[in-house]
């Protein structure tokens, strides 16, 4: 925006102080604002407006329909109580512990696997042009497709286990998807399969952007390959880690459809994530206040994680 303003200032003296020019310069000044205004307004209303709306609803007694009388933090009190009900696990307890397991494993495995694949692909191997899209392709599928495909593959009566039994390996046993304690890990498997190729592509782009001179200099100084990556390449990829983390974190928080397609909630609801909890309570159980409160907690959790991270990463930029 500042560039536009500067240009208009330099233009004005050449053409003299005609009124038309001021109108024009004013228009030029205002144009970016005008063009941005609709999307700004839409964002304010549909994102921030509805965030406030959700917060408001979480303090009411809304059931099937929104009700507007504030009745206090009863929804939060219930969630708080459910947070500590671990035996038998309340649905909320299951959801948040699953979120912890899924979020941690999904993000860390995707980052590790993506970086590893990218480093391997970066070794100037033949056929890279073909291999890259093969890894990247799963990202083009929707979560629903991924979920259904993995559901069939992991089903002991249909997929992997059944096939291996037919091939003669009858002692093979893999029923995680039917097991209440392990079902969340199948969600991790499917999620990692889908996203790690994309993360690989991000790291690959980062690796290609690293100046070869630095690496050569390090090699001359006698750095081993491991040291090279450990001390130079990976630290240089830091901005990529930031982007990848943000992409993965929001995918993890919103993976509602993967759980539904892959497990339909899991045995006894054991695969629920907070997003499933929110949808169930708001739309199926007609407890809109509880649903809203859980949405607010999800928002606060992700804010608590992302904001300090973004702050620490972005603050160092102008060094």
């Amino acid at each position, binding site marked *: 925006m500042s560039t536009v303003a500067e240009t208009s200032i330099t233009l004005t003296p050449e053409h003299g102080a005609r009124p038309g020019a001021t109108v024009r310069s004013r228009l030029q000044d205002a144009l970016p604002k005008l063009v941005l205004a609709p999307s700004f307004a839409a964002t304010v209303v549909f994102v921030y407006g509805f965030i406030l709306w959700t917060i408001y609803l979480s303090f009411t007694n809304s*059931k*099937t*329909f929104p009700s507007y009388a504030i009745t206090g933090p009863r929804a939060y009190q*219930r969630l708080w109580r459910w947070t500590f009900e671990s035996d*038998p*696990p309340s*649905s909320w307890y299951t959801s948040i512990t699953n979120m912890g397991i899924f979020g941690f494993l999904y993000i860390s495995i995707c980052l590790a696997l993506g970086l590893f694949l990218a480093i391997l692909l970066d070794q100037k191997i033949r056929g890279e042009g073909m291999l890259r899209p093969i890894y990247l392709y799963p990202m083009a599928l929707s979560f629903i497709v991924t979920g259904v495909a993995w559901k069939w593959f992991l*089903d*002991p*009566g249909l997929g992997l286990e059944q096939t291996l039994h037919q091939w003669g390996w009858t002692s093979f046993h893999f*029923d995680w*998807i*039917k097991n*209440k304690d392990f079902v969340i890990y199948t969600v991790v498997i499917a999620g990692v399969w889908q996203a790690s190729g994309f993360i690989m592509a991000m790291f690959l782009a980062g690796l290609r952007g690293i100046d070869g001179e630095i690496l050569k200099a390090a090699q001359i100084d006698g750095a081993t390959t491991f040291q090279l990556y450990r001390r130079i390449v990976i630290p240089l990829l830091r901005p990529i880690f930031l982007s990848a983390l943000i992409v993965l974190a929001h995918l993890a928080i919103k993976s509602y459809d993967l759980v539904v397609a892959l*497990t*339909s*909630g*899991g*045995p*006894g*609801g*054991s695969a629920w994530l907070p997003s499933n909890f929110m949808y*169930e309570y708001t*739309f*199926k*159980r*007609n*407890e809109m206040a509880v649903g809203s409160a859980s949405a607010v907690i999800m928002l606060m959790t992700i804010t608590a994680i992302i904001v300090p991270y973004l702050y620490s990463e972005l603050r160092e930029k102008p060094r």
Partner: protein
Amino acid sequence: MLRKLLIGTALASGVAFAAHAEDVKEVQMLHWWTSGGEAAALNVLKQDLAKEGFAWKDVPVAGGGGDAAMTALKAMVAAGNYPTASQMLGYTVLDYAAAGVMGDLTETAKKEGWDKSVPAALQKFSVYDGKWVAAPVNVHSVNWLWINKAVMDKIGGTEPKTFDDFIALLDKAKAAGVIPLALGGQNWQEATMFDSVVLSTGGPEFYKKAFNDLDEESLKSDTMKKSFDNLAKLVTYVDPNFSGRDWNLATAMVIKGDALVQVMGDWAKGEFNAAKKVPGTDFLCYRFPGTDGSVVYNSDMFGMFNVPEDRKAAQIALATATLSKSFQSAFNVVKGSVPARTDVPDTDFDACGKKGMADLKAANEGGTLFGSLAQGYGAPPAVANAYKDVVSKFVHGQIKTSDEAVTQLVSAIEDAK
């Protein structure tokens, strides 16, 4: 003064205009009966209405299924854009009626005699505050056993009359190397089976107290504990791969003879029909052992919304056609359910349908017609879902003992009330 006059004139002419306006000859219908048999059954209604000159317009629902439809309906109603009618279940009708958006069909109901022909238990959901707000389409009952006859003959089984008979029969199947019980491990299927188990274990009075009146004493009684124990017994007869299975796949196991029996509502019969199986020769339908004489029901309703005057005629035509004897018979023969009025002749129905209709009539007269808690006809959705949670967690082992299950059931229901 002049201004008032002007406004008055404007209003009067507006009203006159509205009265003279052409009635909209169109029915806007929100429903999720899109699959084979159900869509065919609904076609009967479309044709009946077409004969009277009313066009049929489906309100599209992205994603299909009842949940998506209910979300769509919520959005439409919030925007003030009511459909003529919507397929609805149980307490949803009452929720919307309480929100004041439902129409009033009482006149039509009087003229057509619905008060007498529709079972009283159903009227609890179709009549709100003395006004008819919905037209029931059918009555499903959930306390059925669906048995593959070939397998039954092979193992030499007979109709189980008590719960112990049933366990003995399942043992026979197990010994013969057949999966005894086909179950889909989704919470609503488990809870639907548990409805029958409770009715069988505690009897009709107990079922009503516990699952319709939500009486705390009954919910935490020893009978309820016994019911959970019985459920645990049944679960030992399912195959290890049951978790997450869809209900129709479980039915397919019985149809193919891989499994002996499924405990499921009478919509399972639609699957047998679609596979060209004949009741009595290919499959058997018995009441869940120990529940003969009682009917645990759920029902599909067409909720009628408070549409503008010019759409009322179409709505009344739709409601009248829905509860006409001819449609009730034609639709329910295909759907597998039984008519929502007890005075429809049973000539077109198969053996299971005839039994279902006779049972419904008897249960209605004997006061043993109860709403299914699992299907959302026993209590509001929050309670029904809390119940499904507990049953499902018990089946899958998060809740380990029947003592714990009963404690959880009481506190979950108390929480959700």
